[in-house]
């Protein structure tokens, strides 16, 4: 992999949040030493359950959050500590699409207002060119008839249309990289596919890179070039999408896969232990240890390193070679 094709590089990313304890202040670490790379025009799907840290990583990459430790490099620039004009410029590189299209739009602003604002502020569009560009964006995301739609307000749009507007707004600044945080989870099934297709078309036409955050392995498999599985703030496994679904090596990935409707494998989960992972600062060992069928003493003591098991298939597990012995 040549260095030049890498768009986003994350090294040893750690994010800590303070929690109020009884007396002393404590920290939790929802993201712990995460490394990842996203190439130009690539989609990395980030899969995990709630509390796994996937949204936190996404927010750090668009600098809605400041990383506690580690280094985030986008287009060769370090973005950990940028502020002011640099941060404003960075907004033109990286944009985010939020989960809830009912909450991420301004109810008193018209549809065209949502697009005019970033176009004016970041791109310097004015007058006729501005109107032209709004039309172009609305067409690009399939919000038609344009003349009618642009005067409407968000409450007049359906969920799918709102999410299309959110995508158009992200595109307004001509970004290179989009963090899409569960963009379809609040939409109806018949609408979801259209949004995923739109994002796929934009990737192809504009060469966009995405961090696609989801809890749904099937859509990650569809949209993601590679899938990264996160648990308790740590990377459990990362591989090319098809490979990961076909040959999951981490016991957690296997569990997730078996639990997804439509999977071939079945595990009896009637009495599954669904205990949430420990996120406290300074925890030891693998976060999945209490639920893992392969757990041994070493899993409690040390977090396994992310190792390349097969070509470009990385897994963090002490016992991944034995994974076929269970289930």
């Amino acid at each position: 992999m040549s260095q030049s094709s890498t768009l986003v590089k994350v090294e040893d990313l750690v994010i800590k949040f303070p929690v109020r304890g009884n007396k002393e202040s404590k920290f939790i670490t929802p993201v712990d030493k995460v490394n990842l790379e996203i190439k130009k025009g690539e989609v990395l799907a980030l899969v995990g359950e709630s509390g796994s840290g996937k949204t936190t990583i996404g927010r750090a990459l668009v600098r809605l959050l400041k990383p506690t430790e580690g280094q985030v490099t986008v287009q060769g620039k370090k973005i950990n500590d940028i502020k002011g004009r640099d941060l404003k410029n960075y907004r033109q590189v990286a944009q985010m699409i939020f989960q809830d299209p009912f909450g991420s739009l301004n109810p008193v602003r018209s549809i065209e207002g949502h697009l005019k604002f970033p176009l004016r502020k970041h791109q310097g569009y004015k007058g006729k060119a501005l109107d032209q560009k709004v039309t172009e964006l609305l067409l690009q995301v399939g919000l038609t008839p344009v003349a009618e739609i642009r005067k409407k307000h968000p409450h007049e749009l359906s969920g799918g249309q709102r999410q299309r507007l959110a995508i158009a707004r992200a595109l307004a600044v001509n970004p290179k990289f989009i963090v899409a945080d569960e963009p379809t989870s609040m939409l109806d099934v018949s609408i979801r596919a259209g949004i995923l297709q739109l994002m796929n078309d934009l990737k192809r036409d504009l060469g966009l890179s995405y961090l696609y955050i989801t809890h749904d392995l099937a859509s990650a498999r569809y949209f993601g070039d590679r899938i990264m599985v996160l648990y308790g703030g740590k990377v459990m496994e990362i591989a090319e999408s098809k490979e990961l679904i076909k040959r999951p090596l981490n016991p957690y990935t296997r569990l997730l896969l078996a639990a997804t409707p439509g999977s071939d494998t079945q595990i009896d989960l009637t009495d599954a232990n669904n205990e949430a992972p420990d996120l406290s600062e300074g925890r030891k060992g693998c976060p999945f240890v209490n639920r893992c069928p392969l757990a041994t003493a070493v899993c409690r003591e040390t977090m396994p390193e992310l190792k390349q098991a097969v070509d470009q298939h990385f897994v963090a597990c002490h016992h991944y070679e034995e994974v076929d012995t269970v289930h």
Partner: protein
Amino acid sequence: MEEKQPVLELQHVSVGYDSPAGMVQAVNDVSLTIYENTIVGLIGESGSGKSTLGNAIMHLMKNNAVLTSGTIKVMGKDVYSLTKNELRKFRWSQMAMVFQSAMNALNPVLTVEDQILDVFLSHDKSMSKKEAKKRARELMDVVSIDPRYLKSYPHELSGGMRQRVVIAIAIALDPKLVIMDEPTTALDVVVQRSILDKIKEIQKVKKFAILFISHDFSLVSELASKVAIMYAGRFIEVTDSHSLMNAKEHHPYTEGLIRAIPHLTAEEVTIEGIPGNPPNLVELPTGCAYHPRCRYANELCKKKRPEMRHVDTRDIECHLYETVQK
């Protein structure tokens, strides 16, 4: 084979909401029978009327909703002919419901035990508190929660555990029919799977009937034996779940839904969305409500509403199958 007893009979049920814009028909002339010991799935998008129908069966309709026509019978009794007092006893002992927002369905200031005891003691005045407590412990066993959580408040439990408690409360009085309205929607996949497995396991033992309302296609087809698909207030297809995934002839909407879902294990994944938007119930399209989004639509579809036809093992409401014998 012995005759199975129908638990739920819906005959030409219509439910409307009285709104300033006139009567909005949320459920429009649906008929369905559910027999004991079966799980029937009800699939639909938001606004298709699936939750309205669930609430109507429980006679729990909110403020301006009215049953405009048809009858709803549970265990042979017309739910709408019962007096207030009869209805209060009938609910939960014969039919119970697991609500959509089950995470919030519990009272935050009462312990889990108090909420379970409440069900027993208010329905059986002769039951002693000691007996009720014993039953509560048994229930916790059934849903695989450690009985020590009886003393916990809802906020001390995880989402999955709260959902198990809500299910425990629903089955406390051994109802014959349990309506589950999106019981796993807000939960993580692994938790969702374990709850579903639990529901299946309990159902096998207690043999009650379930009407499982959901928008998740693959989930329903795994769980239910029969599936009704709802669009704009009508059942547009009623099928057994095996044919749902395997047969070729479906309602175009069903076909669209099947195409819209990415498959987890297929070699090549392609998906295709259904164009357009879910219908507005205030201004329903003429003829077949699905025609503006339908790839096969012709002039007839715009003018005339199709009739329900029996196609192979399924009932489909579409002009496409006009030629097929009724």
